[in-house]
């Protein structure tokens, strides 16, 4: 089993708000992230797939195909978007880094051929990242 990681970057804006909470609760819980006009990050995404090395090609996965899926399913949808307003997952879920990692996993996992998704890592900043392994 060999693991291959592909890195990508996207920039997006978001804000944290739960309509079930009062304005005060939202402010207390989410602080500056609660600003309804949103704020942005340069996100770094690391997608790790795993599989056996194909004896004919020497590849775990066709990187070209992985890049295409990544661009189509994730980057085209998220890059330079306001996540709360433009990405359907976040119409109801709060676009935290945790939920972003889960959403990216859910977008990629069914589209990948051969290689199996192992981990989605999303850096919101160089000092904060979330790993999702598809765990229930």
């Amino acid at each position, binding site marked *: 089993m060999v693991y291959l990681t592909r890195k990508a970057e996207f920039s997006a804006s978001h804000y*944290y708000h739960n309509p079930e909470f009062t304005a005060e609760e939202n402010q207390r819980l989410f*602080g500056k992230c609660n600003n309804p006009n949103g704020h942005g990050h340069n996100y770094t995404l690391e997608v790790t797939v795993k599989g056996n090395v194909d004896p004919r090609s020497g590849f775990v996965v066709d990187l070209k195909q992985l890049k295409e899926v990544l661009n189509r399913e994730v980057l085209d949808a998220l890059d330079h978007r306001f996540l709360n307003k433009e990405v359907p997952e976040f119409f109801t*879920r709060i676009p935290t880094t*945790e939920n972003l990692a889960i959403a990216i996993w859910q977008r990629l996992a069914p589209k990948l051929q051969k290689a199996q998704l192992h981990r989605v890592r999303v850096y919101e900043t160089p*000092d904060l990242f*979330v*790993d*999702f392994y598809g765990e229930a």
Partner: protein
Amino acid sequence: MKAHLTRRYMFSASHRLHSDEMSDAENTATYGKCNNPYGHGHNYALEVTVSGPVDERTGMVCNLVELDEFVQRKILERFDHENLNMLTEFAQAVPTTENLCTTIYDILQRGFQPAHLDKVRLEETMMNSFEYAGD
């Protein structure tokens, strides 16, 4: 669904690697330049990984403010700009990055309640890093 969140912090501290149980020659042989009696310093990078189910109401594994406050109060304020050899934790133990890593893990493990502690990763320099998950 379960996610793993990692937060990175920086602190700077000095130390000297020296064991009273060893002769001077052994100390020099074991620790080399790190045995310099005047000590030396590093910019440490600390990564704390916690995990748990993502709260549906907040979208979070744990509130980052709580983790930051805990690390600030219990770790950074204790170790940043200090000589590690002078601290009670290292009165007996040599302040290697291995021992510092497990010490920090224990502080988090004992005191931080909001999420499960997965592991602590500590970079002494860009070339050296240590991980401890309580094993």
